[in-house]
């Protein structure tokens, strides 16, 4: 059994790659999924997916950037699952996107906290576009959407982000909940 892999792939190199890549993969996921246990789960999924990939014919070049790419796919898969689970809970009505003109400077910490409060679809789009700094066509490919649909999603995501950011910044009493937990149910508007 062991020989089947050892014949084609230097296993010592893979273990060295694991040691080198684990903090990068975990760090990537930890700063994007917000939950420590989830980051661990997705890291494990990434590592095992790498094993599957290396056992296929013509395996990809195994390096840290490739593993970050696998981790990104695992994160998108997670958001898809979360989106499906939340879909049933979503309010029917949608708030039309606010006009996408926004010139003010944002507080980085508050912006990250705001992102955490958004729904999975919006969080996915904004994370890939802004945290990962990917061009729209790459975001579209990762989300399995057309570029046009992705641009529209980003407009809605930005509008939802702006509303949430402004509400938290002003301590909007309409929320009636200083903890912000209200927003994670139906309050976050403009979802897809």
């Amino acid at each position: 059994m062991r020989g089947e892999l050892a014949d084609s792939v230097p296993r010592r190199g893979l273990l060295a790659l694991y040691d080198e890549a684990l903090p990068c993969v975990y760090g990537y996921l930890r700063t994007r999924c917000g939950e420590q246990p989830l980051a661990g789960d997705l890291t494990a999924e990434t590592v095992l997916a790498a094993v599957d990939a290396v056992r296929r014919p013509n395996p990809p070049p195994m390096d840290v950037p490739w593993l970050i790419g696998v981790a990104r796919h695992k994160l998108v898969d997670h958001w898809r699952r979360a989106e499906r689970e939340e879909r049933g809970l979503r309010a029917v009505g949608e708030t039309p996107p606010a006009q996408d003109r926004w010139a003010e400077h944002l507080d980085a910490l508050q912006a990250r906290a705001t992102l955490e409060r958004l729904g999975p679809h919006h969080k996915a789009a904004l994370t890939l576009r802004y945290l990962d700094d990917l061009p729209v066509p790459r975001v579209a490919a990762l989300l399995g959407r057309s570029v046009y649909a992705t641009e529209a999603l980003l407009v809605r995501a930005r509008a939802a982000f702006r509303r949430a950011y402004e509400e938290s910044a002003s301590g909007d009493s309409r929320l009636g909940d200083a903890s912000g937990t209200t927003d994670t149910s139906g309050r976050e508007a403009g979802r897809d």
Partner: protein
Amino acid sequence: MTDPLDVLRTPVVPVDPDPAFAARLRARFERALNVPKGVVVTQATIDRQAATTTEASVVS
């Protein structure tokens, strides 16, 4: 004009997970390398215990 959401940009910063989690996952990784061809290792269950204890310090 810059995009205000550019403030979200986050480079990949290595973070060491809990050492026990890292060791468990490394052992799984080694075992997975040994399973026969044709077996898809990602169908194995994920260890939910994960990195729930202490995260090691950020390595920048």
